[in-house]
């Protein structure tokens, strides 16, 4: 059993049938996205930021802040933001002769439990 040093996920690198398991970190959770937006530590892609900004604007005189917040929530829930420095153990092509195949993204490594 190992723990990913980026996302904190725990997993067995070798499955019960002996085959390899290739961990990849999940995207940021909704709570992490909200936290990042609140603390301004998360920079959204320009298109997503525009969707978010537009959703928060009042459309007309009958619109309400509650409706705007519901639209913002819907946009936040629709976002898929990859985790910074994410680990992806899947192979990225064949390695040099005698060397293991390189990983797509080593992230910050793992801790053996």
């Amino acid at each position: 059993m190992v723990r990913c040093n980026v996302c904190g996920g725990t997993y067995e690198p070798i499955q019960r049938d002996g085959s390899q398991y290739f961990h990849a970190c999940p995207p940021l959770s909704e709570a992490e996205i909200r936290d990042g937006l609140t603390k301004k530590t998360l920079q959204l892609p320009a298109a997503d930021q525009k969707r978010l900004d537009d959703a928060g604007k009042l459309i007309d005189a009958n619109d309400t802040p509650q409706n705007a917040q519901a639209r913002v929530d819907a946009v936040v829930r629709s976002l898929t933001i990859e985790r910074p420095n994410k680990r992806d153990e899947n192979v990225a092509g064949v390695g040099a002769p005698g060397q293991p195949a390189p990983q797509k993204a080593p992230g910050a490594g793992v801790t053996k439990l």
Partner: protein
Amino acid sequence: MADEVITAKARIAGTVQRYLTGAETIRLTVFNSAANVRVQLAGRRFPYGGDTVSEFATQLTPTTNRLATVLDFTPGEGWLLGLSVRVAAGSPLDGQTYCVVEIGNGAGSTFQAFDTLIADTVTAAHRVAWPGSPVRGPLDGPGALRTILGTNPGAGNEIAETVPTGARWQLMSLRVQLVTSATVANRIPELAIDDGTSTWFQSANSVSQVASTTVRYSFGSGYGSLVNGSGNEQSRGLPTPLFLGGGYRLRTSTSALQVGDVFSAIVYNVREWLEGA
């Protein structure tokens, strides 16, 4: 002696055979995902100028990461009479070990194939040979039935399982448990499927999970939506069939997931084929 050679050659004349000048290479390529597999390539040849049929055999230990592992073998001048590929060690399921035997010129990165003699999956019970066995692609056949234990994400995180590079899956079912914290909120877990970038399916769910509860969710291909009497077992349907390529992801997408909520016990069942990489 010369007459005997001519007679022996006459005996093999008319059978399926390949004349090799001595410059050709026989290449065995294996794509594999099963542990501890060793593959044997064996054959018979009638050497030019020889007076008897000779046999050869060599073995290859493939990697388990679905990348091609290659063995080049130069049989020398003469007539190639037959080849076979079998599993010499390990117990791969149908769909976990795929072999290709080619004849070509050169070796290593300069190898240039001009004929494919064998191409098929092999298991301990399924051996393949030239001549005789049909040439099949890696996606032919029933695939390997696998049960996979996924990553338990950290508290407050969604699950995300990625189809490995070089694999193709048919998702049969996925089961996951969500334990919610004491924070009051109505969580609604759904299963999203993306190709690594774009989400192309998300299961709808209208039943929320409240604080301090444990619910196990089963997502089944072709299954309906049901909730048991106590509400701690819920099922959701998935498209049928549901094929996933390398890099595709199975993710939960949970409305109002709280920092202290924990997904765990992620188990899923797939049919797996080798796309090769």
